[in-house]
């Protein structure tokens, strides 16, 4: 009997142990973060079997790169039709994403270079190259000579009319290569497409590419500009640089988040008044009165005079001719054998053609550009960060009333999400745009601390088309992906995430999400070390099923993240119901009215013809009246308009 009990106990115990062991090796934890514990902390590391944590989203698939591209960094993504084109340091990889749960490899093009940032326009694909090892012929082996005809640094143009077989048709070389690029459509020019090239790498020798000049004077320097490439759609092999707009001239001192105190006009006005103006870095600054008086005083005393009060016209002339050199010595500029420093490049430029605006993340500055003349963008405002952010990329909200800059401190190659790293560093900075001026509101940073062996900082992402809200999904390298709501620009909040443990928990290794973007119903992430991930949103207290359904009604034919499309929601019941859900959430419509509207929509949906339209029109009238007394009248108006649109849509 004892033996029997023991045997039974042992086998039961074995079962329990098996279950216990199973729980430990189960790789995904799905739970909400709490103030005391975030499930992203303490995840087991590993290349392919790392622990994972998810919240309010579902992993649809995780796919390894094709053999020849394994071990090379996966970079940015672009989308066209049913395809995602994933950049990789060995060349672009094309996935068929008709079924995001099972991406299928469609094609790839072997062409080693970094960063192989990709974008598309109609039947064309553009790929960025900046590194010294990048070859014109896409062969292995790099380019050993410091000056060489074999080197390609710039934009490659491919014809993808047959997406199974991309054809490399043109190369446009640039002085600093292309770290990233932005495709810009000019609504007034259907025959061409434009590319803003952001080059941040060192300038190449003029012996390698004529005209490249790594010099101080702004007029001829390759440093202080972006390049604009014009691509004739009928003849893309003729793609060429068409302008080099100087958008960095006269940027003033970055002392705070807000408006820089002087703009070009103020400097000009000071000059006109005869005030002293000097160049610091690549900008002009007015010299203060006290300081000039001190200098004048010294000049007068040096010739034996009494002081500044006794200054003659000759003294003033002496000051005027010598003040620049004096200031140069003062700030150490005379020691520099190189260029005048300053934001001499943009890391990334996001254009929003519908609004005629672009956001440039440029060195120490976030720039707001007017791109109504696409070939000649003009700077209209700039902000700098008192936390010394290095701006990387920009995203507008859909209305164009806010802009988010991300600070890619550490270049993406460093662990900047440790508990000891300040929350303002390596984060997103959110600004409102009012009268074409930017005003700082808040920072957003990935809330969960990451380990010292995981590179982590704000990186690429895009808006999720939730109507009436500003929600973004963003890659944070090995911080994983984070979805946050920034509808209130002063109070961004995380509402979903996915994270893995480190690629290697024993040593620092690069990995994580380079970019994650929403495209036609799912979110796709380029995982640097692991491949291609797909996710979908799941309903939660923060996002309802209706809102998810409404998001899925927004369809793109193609998508380049740096060319923001205006999000437009076609009429749908999901759209109307989304607004109802939001008004329930923010309590700006009474629960009685919420129920009534829901019932009304359900009834209308079941009805058809004039019965439906009558019911909907009645609802519209009632809602317009509700709007007047609501704490969120604007949203009720949106609901009313959505209901009205439904009445006009044939069932």
């Amino acid at each position: 009997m004892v033996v029997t009990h023991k045997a039974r106990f042992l086998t039961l115990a074995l079962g329990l142990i098996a279950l216990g062991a199973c729980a430990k090796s189960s790789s995904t934890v799905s739970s909400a973060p709490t103030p005391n514990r975030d499930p992203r902390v303490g995840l087991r590391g590993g290349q392919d079997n790392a622990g994972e944590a998810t919240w309010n989203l579902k992993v649809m698939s995780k796919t390894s790169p094709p053999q020849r591209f394994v071990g090379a960094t996966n970079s940015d993504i672009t989308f066209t039709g049913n395809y995602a084109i994933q950049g990789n340091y060995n060349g672009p990889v094309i996935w068929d994403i008709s079924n995001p749960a099972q991406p299928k490899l469609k094609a790839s093009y072997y062409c080693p270079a970094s960063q192989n940032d990709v974008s598309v326009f109609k039947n064309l694909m553009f790929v960025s190259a900046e590194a010294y090892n990048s070859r014109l012929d896409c062969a292995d082996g790099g380019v050993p000579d410091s000056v060489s005809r074999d080197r390609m640094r710039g934009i490659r143009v491919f014809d993808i009319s047959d997406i199974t077989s991309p054809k490399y048709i043109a190369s446009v070389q640039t002085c600093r290569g292309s770290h990233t690029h932005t495709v810009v459509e000019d609504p007034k020019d259907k025959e061409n497409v434009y590319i803003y090239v952001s080059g941040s790498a060192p300038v190449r020798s003029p012996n390698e590419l004529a005209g490249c000049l790594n010099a101080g004077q702004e007029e001829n320097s390759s440093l202080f500009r972006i390049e604009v490439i014009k691509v004739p759609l009928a003849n893309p092999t003729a793609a060429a640089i068409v302008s080099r707009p100087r958008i960095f001239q006269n940027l003033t001192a970055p002392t705070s988040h807000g408006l820089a105190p002087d703009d070009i006009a103020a400097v000009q006005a000071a000059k006109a008044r005869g005030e002293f103006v000097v160049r610091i870095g690549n900008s002009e600054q007015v010299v203060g009165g006290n300081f000039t008086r001190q200098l004048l005083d010294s000049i007068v005393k040096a010739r034996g005079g009494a002081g500044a009060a006794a200054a003659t016209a000759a003294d003033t002339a002496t000051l005027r001719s010598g003040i620049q050199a004096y200031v140069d010595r003062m700030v150490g500029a005379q020691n520099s054998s190189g260029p005048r420093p300053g934001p001499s490049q943009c890391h990334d430029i996001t254009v929003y053609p519908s609004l005629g605006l672009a956001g440039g993340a440029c060195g120490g500055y976030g720039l707001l550009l007017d791109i109504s003349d696409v070939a000649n963008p003009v700077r209209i405002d700039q902000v700098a960060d008192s936390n010394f952010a290095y701006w990387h990329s920009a995203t507008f909200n859909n209305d164009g009333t806010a802009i988010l800059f991300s600070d890619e401190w550490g270049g993406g190659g460093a662990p900047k999400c440790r508990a000891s790293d300040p929350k303002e560093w390596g984060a997103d900075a959110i600004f409102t745009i009012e009268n074409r001026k930017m005003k700082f509101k808040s920072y957003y940073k990935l809330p969960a601390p990451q380990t010292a062996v995981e590179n982590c900082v704000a990186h690429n992402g895009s808006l999720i088309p939730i109507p009436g809200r500003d929600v973004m999904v963003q890659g944070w390298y090995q911080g994983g992906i984070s979805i946050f709501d920034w509808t209130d620009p002063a109070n961004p909040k995380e509402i979903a995430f996915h994270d893995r443990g480190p690629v290697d928990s024993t040593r620092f290794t690069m990995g994580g999400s380079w970019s994650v973007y929403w495209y036609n119903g799912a979110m796709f992430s380029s995982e640097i070390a692991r491949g291609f991930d797909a996710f979908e949103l799941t309903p939660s207290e923060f996002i309802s099923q209706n809102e998810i359904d409404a998001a899925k009604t927004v369809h793109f034919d193609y998508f380049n993240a740096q060319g923001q499309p205006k999000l437009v929601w076609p009429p749908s019941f999901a759209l109307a119901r989304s607004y109802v859900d939001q008004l329930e959430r923010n309590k700006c419509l009474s629960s009685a009215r919420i129920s009534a509207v829901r019932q009304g929509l359900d009834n209308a949906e079941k009805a058809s013809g004039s019965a439906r339209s009558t019911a909907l029109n009645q609802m519209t009238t009632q809602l317009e009246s509700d709007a007047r007394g609501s704490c969120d009248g604007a949203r009720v108006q949106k609901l009313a308009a959505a209901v009205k649109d439904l009445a006009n849509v044939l069932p």
Partner: protein
Amino acid sequence: MIRTHNRSRAAALLATVALVACSSATVGSRQASMSPAEKARADSTKWPYTKADIDFMSGMIHHHAQAIEMAKLAPTNGAGSSVSILTGRVINAQTDEIHVMQQWLGERNQPVPEPNPKGMKMVMDGVEHVMPMPGMLTDAQMDTLKAARGKDFDQYFLRYMIQHHQGAVTMVKTLISSRGAALDETVFKVASDINVDQETEIARMQKMLFNMLTDKP
């Protein structure tokens, strides 16, 4: 007997079911590609590198070490708030960069130097010297900085760090004009990032210094 047998079989079945349930509980099953990926990771040292790459990565370790030493003076020497934020960033960023450079050298079985704020140890004519990298402060400059307080510290710090950063930019130039250098992705990235970040900081520091010296807010 039969009863016992059934129970133990049931328990065994339970264990089996648990294990089977276990394997399908992992999300997103795909073929584990550890072998090729790990092999490829080893191949990440596939890009050739030259003495210029090694000198750059080694020298920059010492260059960064001095920047960190300078920046660490801020709290004790009464730095103002802007300089304090700047020094915080410098310490954080350059400490991490030192680790990256040390790891790169170690992976290639090169000597991994201990960071030396005075410069790189070199043996010339059988005698060991410590050679400062471009832009590094002389002993006299470092002494001046260590003795300065408050606004004086801020101004010396900015002036010397501008000089220091200009030296880093020079080291990048030396690297990329060497044959075969900066083909390695990590070296290229480190050099390119240092070039860009430090040029940006130089501009900011020049403006800060100008504002300080001319009593602007």
